[in-house]
Structure formats: C-alpha cells, structure tokens
C-alpha cells in the first residue's frame, strides 16, 4: 500500500514537471532528502530514481528554462574548487575503497549544490525550494516527533520510517538539521505566498517546530540540545520583547523538565560531566589523533582516513568513595566533528576552503539583512527575513557540526544553495538600482530602498 502510494506520488510530481519543468528540481530535493526508494520495498527500488530525477531537473533547466540573469557566484566557485580538491585527495587516499565509496555521494551533493542556485532565479522559486525542503525533512521530523511522544525514543533506538543510519536518518544529524530549519519554517509561516500566512499555516508550522524540538529528546542526541540552546539565544536578536521571550523560555524549560524521560536527562548530564563519559573521551582522543595526523599529512588522508587511528582512552569516574579510571583501547573511530573530518580527510587546505565557504555565507547573509533592513517593499522585507532565518540556521549547523561529522551532509549543501540563490536574487535587484542611483546621485542623499526603485530599463 505504502509502496503504491509513494510510486503514485513520485509519478504525479514527475508528470507535473511536464507542464512546469522547475517541478523536477523540487522533485530531486524531495528524493534526495526523503529517499522514497529506501522506504519503498518493490516498485521504486527497481529504478535509479535519484539519477532519473536529477537528469530530468538538469535537462528541464538546460532546454526549457529561461537562463536570464543566471551567473556563477564566488561560493559556487569555492564548491567547484572543493570538488576538484576532494577528487585528488580521493585518488591518493589512505583507504582507497572506502574513500571511493564516500566520494560517490559527496560529488553528487556538491554538483547539485553548484547547480541549484542557477535554477532558483525568482522569489517564488526560492520560496518553493525552501518549502519543499522543510516539508520533506518534515516527514522525518513529524514521524520522529510523534514516535517520541508515544514513548518510542532512545539513543540509537528512534526508527524513522526505516532502519537506516545514513543521511538525515542518522540520529545526531536529524537532531541538528531539525533545529536548523526551525527559523526557515517560521519564515515560511510568516512570509510565505504558496501557503499564505493564516491560522492554518501557523498551526502547522508551530506543530512542526514542536516536533523538531522533540527530535533531540527522541534521539537523545546531545548535539540537538546544544543546537536548540543556541537557536534560543540567536532568536533573541529578532524578537520584539526580549525579556518576555527570555522569561517564557525559562518558564518553558522549567515546566518541561519533569516530563522528560530519565534516560534523556542522564545522557544530557554527561555534557557537563564528560570525564566519565566514554563517547566524549573518545571524541577528544580522535581529535588529538587528527591533529597529530595532519602534522605529518598536511593535505589530509582522503575520505575515511579515520580508519587508521588507534586510540588509548582513559575515563575517570568518581563514585563518592574515590575516583576509578578505566583505560580502553579502540581503533578506527570516526571524527564526530565536521571540522576534524575536514582536517583529517582534506588537510589544512580543505579545511580552509570549507571554512571560507561557510563563513562567507554568514557574512553575505548579514550584508543582505542590513541592506534591506529599512526597506518597506514587501519583497525586500521577505528577503531580509529569509536572510536572517538562513543565517540562524547556518549558525546552528556550524555548532552542531562541532560534534557530528556532517561536513558533506547533502541537506546542508542545499541550504547553502538557497543562501547563494538569495544573495544572487538580491544582487540582481540591486544592479538596476545602482545604475539609477548613479544617474540621479545627489551628494549626501540617503540610499533609496530597493523595492521602490525603478529598473534602469524602464527609464
């Protein structure tokens, strides 16, 4: 039944693409996030769904779409450089078979992120992509949220549709991503035009956000809790009544505490007392090993280079009668941090390139927000709000990435593509204004808002 439903759904969406080829771009976003071919057990598993939809999206854009104003941005070039660099490190990787395996999905994720901004060239397309991403991730989040409420959570025990530990189906990854898209869901509920702002849209958005907040509880991923705390602080910047917001937040935290499962509270307690926690001690040992490794291999060891590590982990536990220390020998432990993942696998140049890609996005979004802050034009207000939402989401990701190896998480690269599309869109709108302003420049006059300016071609 589920199989038939998913097949009919994918077929219907692909048919709609015949009328508006951009729908194929949205279809790929959906396929890459939800992976219906994994949920399905017969029909969809027999076709290379991801490849077919990717080809349709690219062909649709190449032959049937208007490419006016489409141009590459600096961040797209950075991703091209990263792609080439990763290709070379894969050729000389410490573990060629495993490295080739990771490369097989990393390159697709990067190529898609490089392509996507070219297709997102109107305000509505950017909104549609954001909405499809939120709804697709929402399928997993609603599923996980409801199961958590029904008592089905637990560390490594929350099953989202399928028993899979890849992509968004991995507990810590979905915890980080669920929190990172909360600002985007709020933006869609407030400024959306596909589902205009009304009580129904708001109720759905709040329910989705509630489910997203339940994900770190259900997965018992400490990363999610840290991410949620950061988002709460970041949102202080945008709310009108800060003290009221802070008070409501503190009250909510107090009220929620007795309702949390014991296993969750115990696990979150290890954030403070990490000396007794083997998982935290292993991370520190892997990070120390990585620093030593890149001192000898400054260009990294290629994908999955962590497989070569051998660690000696010492944990200490104070039981009230004295401290006991345990020594554990372990090997081939993953990085558990995107920063150390980049450092160990791609070396210092790879890490520098990756960090530049991330930080330049935050700076560009801040630029967009500041430039449009005072404008009253509806589209400018929407862009400014979207820039803030994407920036908050990216800060959350960068914090979560400190504790999870998600340097090449495809969903995050889709968010980066959205950021690029937004910055490009604002630049396109700015360009004619710049010409108009030059023509009509009066020394000392304040900047005219973007949305109210007349395009140069109309003069």
């Amino acid at each position: 039944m589920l199989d038939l439903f998913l097949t009919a759904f994918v077929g219907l969406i692909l048919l709609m693409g015949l009328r508006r080829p951009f729908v194929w771009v949205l279809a790929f976003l959906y396929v890459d996030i939800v992976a219906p071919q994994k949920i399905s057990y017969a029909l969809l598993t027999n076709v290379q769904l991801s490849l077919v939809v990717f080809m349709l999206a690219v062909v649709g854009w190449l032959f049937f779409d208007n490419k006016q104003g489409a141009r590459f941005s600096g961040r797209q070039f950075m991703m091209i450089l990263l792609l080439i660099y990763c290709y070379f490190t894969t050729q000389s990787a410490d573990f060629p078979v495993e490295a080739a395996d990771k490369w097989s999905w990393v390159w697709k994720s990067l190529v898609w992120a490089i392509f996507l901004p070219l297709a997102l060239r109107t305000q509505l397309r950017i909104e549609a992509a954001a909405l499809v991403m939120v709804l697709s991730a929402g399928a997993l989040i609603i599923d996980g949220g409801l199961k958590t409420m029904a008592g089905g959570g637990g560390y490594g025990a929350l099953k989202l549709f399928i028993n899979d530990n890849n992509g968004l189906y991995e507990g810590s990854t979905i915890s980080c991503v669920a929190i990172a898209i909360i600002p985007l869901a709020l933006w869609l509920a407030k400024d959306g035009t596909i589902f205009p702002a009304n009580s129904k849209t708001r109720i759905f958005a709040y329910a989705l956000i509630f489910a997203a907040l339940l994900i770190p509880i259900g997965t018992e991923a400490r990363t999610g809790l840290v991410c949620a705390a950061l988002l709460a602080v970041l949102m202080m910047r945008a709310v009108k009544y800060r003290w009221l917001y802070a008070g409501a937040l503190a009250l909510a935290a107090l009220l929620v505490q007795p309702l949390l499962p014991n296993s969750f509270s115990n696990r979150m307690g290890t954030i403070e007392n990490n000396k007794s926690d083997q998982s935290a001690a292993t991370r520190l040992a892997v990070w120390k090993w990585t620093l030593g490794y890149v001192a000898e291999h400054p260009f990294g060891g290629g994908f999955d280079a962590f497989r070569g590590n051998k660690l000696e982990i010492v944990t200490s536990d104070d039981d009230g009668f004295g401290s006991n220390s345990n020594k554990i020998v372990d090997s081939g432990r993953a990085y558990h941090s995107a920063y150390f993942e980049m450092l160990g696998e791609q070396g210092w140049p790879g890490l520098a390139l990756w960090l530049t890609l991330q930080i330049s996005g935050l700076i560009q979004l801040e630029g967009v927000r500041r430039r449009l802050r005072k404008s009253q034009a509806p589209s400018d207000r929407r862009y400014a709000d979207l820039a803030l939402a994407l920036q908050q989401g990216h800060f959350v990701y960068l914090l979560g990435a400190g504790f999870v190896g998600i340097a090449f998480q495809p969903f995050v690269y889709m968010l980066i593509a959205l950021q690029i599309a937004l910055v490009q869109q604002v630049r396109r709108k700015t360009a004619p204004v710049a010409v108009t302003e030059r023509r009509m420049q009066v020394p000392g006059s304040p900047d005219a808002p973007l949305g109210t300016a007349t395009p140069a071609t109309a003069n």
Partner: protein
Amino acid sequence: MIDYFAIALTHGLLVLVCLRLLTRGDLDRDPAPEEEVPLEAEPEKKAKWRVRRA
C-alpha cells in the same frame, strides 16, 4: 500507523505545493514591484487596540 500519518500529511502538502505552482505566473518571472503580494496585514483586533491606546 505513525509512519502512514507522517507520509500522508507531508506528501499531501507537497502535492498541493506543486499544484499551486503550476498556476503561478511568477514562478518563471519575478513580478514588478507594483504587482508584489503585500505582506500579511496587521490583524484587525491588534490594530484597534493600538488605536485605543493612542
């Protein structure tokens, strides 16, 4: 059961998104500033309250 509910709800909304996009002219071309959809109007109750306070 929860799986079915989560899939039915989100996939239903995804179909609705695509259906609404099929009829939108601004999918391929941005509207001129005067054609833009205005932002959400301030709720009537809130506006009245503000006038009373003033």
